């Protein structure tokens, strides 16, 4: 078993009347790519800022590598942060920015320069050292921030929505690069995001935050395929829940069930139900959303409730799928893709 890089014990934080973090216990292993996923205001950034030392917890404990750091200032912790707005020093060159942490730690100048250049090369920014941050693009700034945080070889790297300001193409590219860099340097990454796809793409494990608490911790597959609470089912992936009457009728038992949209096939109403391996339900197509590579069908079930089904456009064109609007269909999915969602507390 690998050691714990970060250990949080009953961590709480209130700002005046409002509770931002309402009791969190978490263990993050050494060398792990760990994501904190949640909507804005769910407390994930506050937890990150408490690990970095920018906020002090109202109560609870923070351990870094087995050492209690709860009362320590940011400059006393072996943790570096990549900020959402990058927080590059505008009056310094790129190289000076990257070397700043080393300079503060009194690393001799020649070594400092070598390491800063190496760090810039690692994020593919050779030759940019003399420029000012103001003259770089968003993606380049992001990588300078990454180089600056990595050059000191911290035990843990905290990333606060670092890809939020980038456009989609660049974001997807950076997701792959970030993961590759993390594998290369072997440092524990704690990544805060509200983008479920980002979290699923990069993480070894994910903690889903809601209203200052953790709803579920698990691998991307566990989170996606076996959501532990209705909130997780709704936040990660498309909300597709069967509840109450419709659950009883379609699944055959009471409770709340989750089915992922891409598992559901849209068939003609007259199609034979392929039981007993499959669940099936009839309904009317309320809306058709053409997505290019796929189409999303919103179907109002006869049993009550609404399910979303996602179909790849393998052979259908946009006109074909548009014709589905208002028609009667039969939805069918394999029983093993139906998951019972535990009842909320």
């Amino acid at each position, binding site marked *: 078993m690998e050691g714990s890089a970060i250990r949080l014990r009953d961590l709480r934080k209130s700002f005046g009347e409002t509770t931002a973090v309402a009791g969190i216990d978490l263990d993050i292993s050494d060398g792990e790519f760990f994501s904190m996923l949640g909507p804005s205001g769910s407390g994930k950034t506050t937890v990150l800022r408490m690990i970095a030392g920018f906020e002090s917890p109202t109560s609870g404990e923070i351990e870094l590598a087995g050492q209690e750091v709860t009362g320590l200032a940011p400059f006393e912790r072996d943790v570096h942060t990549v900020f959402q707005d990058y927080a590059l020093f505008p009056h310094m060159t790129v190289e000076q920015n990257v070397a700043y942490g080393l300079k*503060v730690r009194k690393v001799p100048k020649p070594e400092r320069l070598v390491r800063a250049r190496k760090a810039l090369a690692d994020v593919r920014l050779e030759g940019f050292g003399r420029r000012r941050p103001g003259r770089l693009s968003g993606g380049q700034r992001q990588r300078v921030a990454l180089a600056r*945080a990595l050059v000191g070889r911290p035990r843990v790297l905290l990333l606060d929505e670092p890809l939020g300001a980038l456009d989609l193409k660049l974001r997807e590219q950076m997701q792959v690069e970030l993961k590759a860099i993390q594998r290369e340097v072997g440092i524990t990454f704690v990544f805060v995001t509200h983008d479920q796809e980002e979290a699923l793409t990069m993480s070894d494990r994910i903690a889903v935050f809601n209203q200052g608490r953790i709803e579920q911790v698990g691998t991307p597959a566990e989170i996606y395929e076996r959501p532990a609470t209705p909130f997780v089912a709704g936040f990660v992936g498309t909300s597709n829940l069967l509840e109450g009457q419709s659950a009883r009728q379609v699944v055959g038992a009471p409770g709340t069930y989750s089915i992922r949209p891409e598992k559901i096939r849209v068939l003609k109403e007259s199609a034979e139900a392929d039981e007993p391996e499959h669940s099936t339900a009839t309904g009317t197509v309320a809306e058709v959303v053409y997505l290019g590579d796929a189409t999303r069908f919103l179907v109002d079930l006869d049993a009550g409730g609404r399910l979303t089904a996602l179909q790849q456009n393998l052979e259908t064109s946009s006109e074909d799928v548009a014709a589905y609007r208002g028609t009667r269909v039969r939805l069918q999915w394999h029983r093993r893709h139906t998951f019972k969602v535990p009842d909320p507390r």
Partner: protein
Amino acid sequence: MTTTAQAAGRSPVRRLAGTLHRHPRLRLSLLLTAPLLWLAVLYLGSLAVLFVSAFWTTNSFTSEVVKVWSTDNFHALFTTPVFRQVILRSIGVALAVTVLCAVIAFPVAFYTARIAKPKWRPLLVVAILTPLWASYLVKVYAWRLILSQGGLADWMLKPFGMSGPGFGLLAAVIALTYLWLPYMILPIHTALEQLPASLLDASADLGGRPARTFRSVVLPMVLPSVAAGSVFTFSLSLGDYITVQIVGGKTQLIGNLVYSNIELNLPMAAALGTVPVVVIVLYLLAMRRTGALSSL
């Protein structure tokens, strides 16, 4: 055409607005004419007249201006010991006032911009500005009272076995520092207030203790604003002559020399008057290198 027919149907005001919208150059020239005229005729014009008249001389019996080209006045500026002394003293006073203002303004601005609770900040800024509401003369005479023999300064320093500075060069520097301090505090306050908190976090995150963060991040980022404030304090001090007259005792600055020459030797006064203009232009050029002018 339809467009003209439509145009004819509209009110004159709308037609004018439309014309202006279609002709951006016309719009620009209308906007700029008045201020440009003001600048060119009143300001640059009077400066040119000043500069030209500095090359004239006077009839030494009648004090009448003789319009004969000569560089004697400028020659006298650099060779007459009194003139040289006064010029250097004036620049020295302006620099001293600027440094004092910066040293006092920084902690004040740091408090109003970053330490005070956000809801109090606008109020504190207003408080800093209130001295500017009072008349310049009232404030300088107040300082005359404070610094006079047996005045407030003497009374307060007496328990320590000291006495106030009295009237003189030091008194002039103190009064000028008081007068121009708000012009230094405001730009520094603005710069400190706009300093992103994440930069301070980033510095601490990378291991920088508060003193290092201040030296390496806060100070360099606020320095252009200090330079911007210094443009005010420096040029206002260099041009002042009333404060010196009231609290400066026998001290003379350039302004006083201009004032005393204006009746007897107008060209000499003009030559003296060009000195602060030149010094301030040089100062502005020096400050431009720090980026101060873009943060004004």
